[in-house]
């Protein structure tokens, strides 16, 4: 009981941090933001009791002293020493870490479910699929393929450098920082860490403070299972992240939103650190009338509400369909919702809740906007105590409304209607590039046009979400949805430097290379470049002695 109270305080505090603090990164006072908490919330009442506020300030004090710039300095210095020792570069070390990671997940599955339930009420099956199975899968793949991935890749050489041989060697970048997020606290922390370890780097993971139970479990498990001299977890919020970002990293991998992504990239610029930004965006789902309606509806419902209740960066954010088809689609979606979550979805155990009050309020305000609130055709119920909003479908909200401006990241699904399904392309292209774009259709021509004309991080035709599970596809955004990609070998590559190595012997210098220069040399050079053998011979014959 006590622990759950603690957690809630922690969660609430972190929540205010994230909601109001990130834009003034670095200049934030935890104690102050606590005061600006909305008083209606239950947790706020908890906070108001003298004991709790005392414990909060205590916690703040503790946080202050636990991780600051000085600590960050030392952390990075220590890691550098370990990295420079060469230990993390060895195949054996990488395999040992990946094996422990696998063991860590498998042995602590129950704890992981518990943490996910605490933070998000995530149903166990969903948690198994999207967090446990995905990460163990990544581990296994890396364990199986690592020797292949690490092998230098032969490269052909051309006549310009003849005779020579060349290869591309993958080497670790050094010390990498992984900043993960709260919606899939395990998957989005472990998956990049797996790539970083496989590539032979030293790693610091900063899990999201907004999913506190998961963050502290990660911290505990990393201590127990992984090599603590080279792999570390730093828990914390804005102050800690700021302290970390001041350090010089060899790579920063961030999952989250564009606003913080910009801050991260600007901080990285000071040290010329390359970044991978895994952001989100409004992922559209186009539904053509020429489609298998029932299957399409089922897969949309699964991708929207069956995956962390819409709190997923690749969830369908909104649907575009034709005016004529919209009523049929809505009926089908309704049916599938009942099929999945019963007649009272607010009571369903098969759906995650919203992460915190801040996001609950953000979502309800999206629903309550003028000209939006009257467009709700399914759902619309809410329960602030339980942080739940029922699956909600809105029809023909104005394109200028807030719900169509920002990433929804919750159980609201607006449907826009167009006269012709091709008109959907203009709507999508007039917005920033999404992380994923979905289309449901049996029309081959339409599929082709969709692939050709729409730019997105990834595309999935006739389904949702599952492209994420395919290791052989790179996962990552473009434009506003981010840069860089990962998963499977792409993760390994993202955390490696590809060093071009060229081997030359001492023979085979063309005389044209070195001064003194003559017109004849220039002629030969031109002939060589154009690959014109006849010219080469001619200029060589005509070449005065050299």
């Amino acid at each position, binding site marked *: 009981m006590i622990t759950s109270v603690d957690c809630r305080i922690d969660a609430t505090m972190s929540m205010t941090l994230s909601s109001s603090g990130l834009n003034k990164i670095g200049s934030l006072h935890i104690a102050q933001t606590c005061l600006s908490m909305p008083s209606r919330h239950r947790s706020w009442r908890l906070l108001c009791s003298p004991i709790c506020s005392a414990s909060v300030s205590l916690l703040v004090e503790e946080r202050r002293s636990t991780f600051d710039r000085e600590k960050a300095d030392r952390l990075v210095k220590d890691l550098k020493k370990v990295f420079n020792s060469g230990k993390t570069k060895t195949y054996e070390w990488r395999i040992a870490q990946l094996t422990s990671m696998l063991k860590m997940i498998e042995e602590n599955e129950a704890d992981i479910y518990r943490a996910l339930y605490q933070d998000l009420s995530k149903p166990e099956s969903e948690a198994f699929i999207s967090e446990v199975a995905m990460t163990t899968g990544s581990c296994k793949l890396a364990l199986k393929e690592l020797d292949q991935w690490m092998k230098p890749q032969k490269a052909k050489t051309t006549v310009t450098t003849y005779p020579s041989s060349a290869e591309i060697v993958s080497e670790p970048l050094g010390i990498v920082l992984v900043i993960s997020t709260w919606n899939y606290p395990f998957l989005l922390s472990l998956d990049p860490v797996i790539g970083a370890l496989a590539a032979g780097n030293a790693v610091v993971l900063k899990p999201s403070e907004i999913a506190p139970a998961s963050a502290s479990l990660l911290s505990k498990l990393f201590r127990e299972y992984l090599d603590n001299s080279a792999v570390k977890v730093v828990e914390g919020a804005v102050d800690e992240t700021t302290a970390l970002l001041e350090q010089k990293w060899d790579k920063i991998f961030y999952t989250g939103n564009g606003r913080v992504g*910009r801050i991260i990239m600007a901080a990285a610029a000071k040290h010329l650190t390359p970044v991978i930004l895994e952001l989100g965006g409004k992922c559209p789902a186009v539904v053509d009338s020429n489609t298998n309606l029932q299957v399409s509806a089922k897969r949309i419902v699964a991708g929207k509400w069956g995956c962390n209740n819409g709190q997923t960066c690749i969830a369908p954010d909104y649907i575009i369909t034709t005016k004529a088809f919209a009523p049929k689609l809505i009926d089908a979606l309704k049916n599938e919702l009942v099929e999945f979550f019963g007649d009272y979805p607010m009571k369903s155990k098969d759906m995650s809740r919203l992460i915190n009050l801040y996001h609950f309020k953000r979502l309800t305000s999206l629903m309550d906007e003028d000209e939006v609130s009257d467009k709700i055709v399914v759902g619309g119920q809410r329960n602030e105590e339980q942080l739940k909003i029922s699956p909600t479908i809105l029809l023909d909200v104005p394109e200028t409304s807030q719900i169509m401006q920002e990433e929804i990241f919750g159980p609201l699904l607006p449907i826009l209607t167009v006269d012709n399904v091709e008109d959907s392309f203009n709507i999508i292209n007039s917005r920033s590039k999404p992380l994923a774009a979905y289309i449901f259709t049996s029309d081959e021509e339409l599929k082709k046009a969709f692939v050709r004309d729409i730019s997105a*991080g990834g595309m999935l*035709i006739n389904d949702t979400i599952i492209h994420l599970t395919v290791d052989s596809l790179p996962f990552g955004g473009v434009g506003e949805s981010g840069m860089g990609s990962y998963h499977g070998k792409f993760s390994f590559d993202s955390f490696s430097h590809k060093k071009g190595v*060229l081997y030359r012997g001492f023979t085979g210098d063309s005389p044209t290379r070195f001064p*003194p220069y003559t017109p004849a040399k220039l002629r030969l050079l031109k002939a060589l*470049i154009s690959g014109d053998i006849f010219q080469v011979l001619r200029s060589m014959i005509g070449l005065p002695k050299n």
Partner: protein
Amino acid sequence: MGGEAGDDPNFEKDLEELRETFNSGKTRDASWRRSQLKAMQLLLKETEDEIFHALKQDLGKPRCEAYRDEIGTVTKSVQYALGNLKYWMSAKKVNLPLIAFPATAELIPEPLGLVYIISSWNFPFGLSLEPIIGAIAAGNVVVLKPSELAPTCSAVLASVIDKYLDNKAIKVFQGGVSVGQQLLQHKWDKIFFTGSAQVGRLVMAAAANHLTPVTLELGGKCPAVVDSISGSWDRESTFKRILGGKFASCAGQVCIGVDYILVEKRYLSTLVSRLQIWIRKMFGDNPKECLARIINKHHFIRLKNLLSDPLVKASIRHGGSLDEANLFIEPTILVDPPLHSAIMTEEIFGPLLPIITLDKIEDSVKFINSRPKPLTIYAFTNNEKLKKMLIAGTSSGGITFNDTLVQHAADTIPFGGVGGSGFGRYHGKFSFDTFSHEKAILRRGFLTDFWFRFPPWDDKKLQLFRDAYRYDYIGIALTFLGLKK
């Protein structure tokens, strides 16, 4: 220099036009890309003399050098791009794991959009056109800002690109710092920068505002590790190639030029004396005909100051004469200048070549690792163990054994830095990839779904998932039939 720079109110209009061109979809067509690459070929062929002239004017580059390092290399790259374009542009089928159900997947490269290329003055044509080839091949619209420090070249680039390439899709903006800064405020889909780390930081910070990915091609102090080589042919080749890589390419003003040499003490006298002989042979009679000059007064004085430290001055073994009127510096060799002196802490970027002696050549690994990661490491050796040590024990953009600079001409190995020498890579297909987004596409039919994919959840479904992820198809069958827990 670059005095014509200033506020150009036409940027907005030009950028809008470029966006329109991109949105029209024309640059995506293979035929457009091919036509532009062919036009680039024609440009290189027909305006050769103009290019030679401009390079002579700005940098005193000899024609042979200009052809070898700029026109020739770019000609080769265009040819390579034309030959491979179809393959580069094709979608790549991707194998799917069993668990992914009946589905097909592919990777389709698509252009990023409007890209901004900032090039440098030392290879004004090479470092401008090489990335443009990649950007065009990938189907982007392009803005190039050449360096104002090579003003003749900048003007020639502006006029010939306008004349030969599609000027609705590829534009050159000339100007200095203020133009560069103005342009950086805009939203680009990619920024490709060649230059110094200091400006690289500014570029990346500006890019962060718009979440624009960047490629930074920076420099660093590239060492040449010279092992004591026994065979006389190998030895003489080494010396020639070092001198070629230091002095005979833009007078050492090259990001991958040899910055300093690491050598064993006992081998020093051979090295110095042979280098001196070869310097005379190569550049002896008329060095100004065979070597480029320093780009401008500012850099000339910077280099002069590197030598002004009395301890550094005392370490000069060869050369050292400076002709300020002609901005010409003689090939200069120094032995063991103090390691804390500027010449050993800053990138030299000029025809000064310090030689640092070590007790054992293996110490070079430690020496290199105690400094920022260079763009390239050169090593001259026949010792396979030393080669392995250097590959595994050091980090750099790339390594080239037994030669200098030629890696720049290899289309099949990535060119780019790591750490202080930048990030991102180009050349050949890597250029194409740098300017493309690889879009992952997964196609599904409507036929099969594992019914246990969807809620409502129960233990049986969870068990089925476990089996499916373990590829335990017998388990799936058993659970399905109700025979397993």
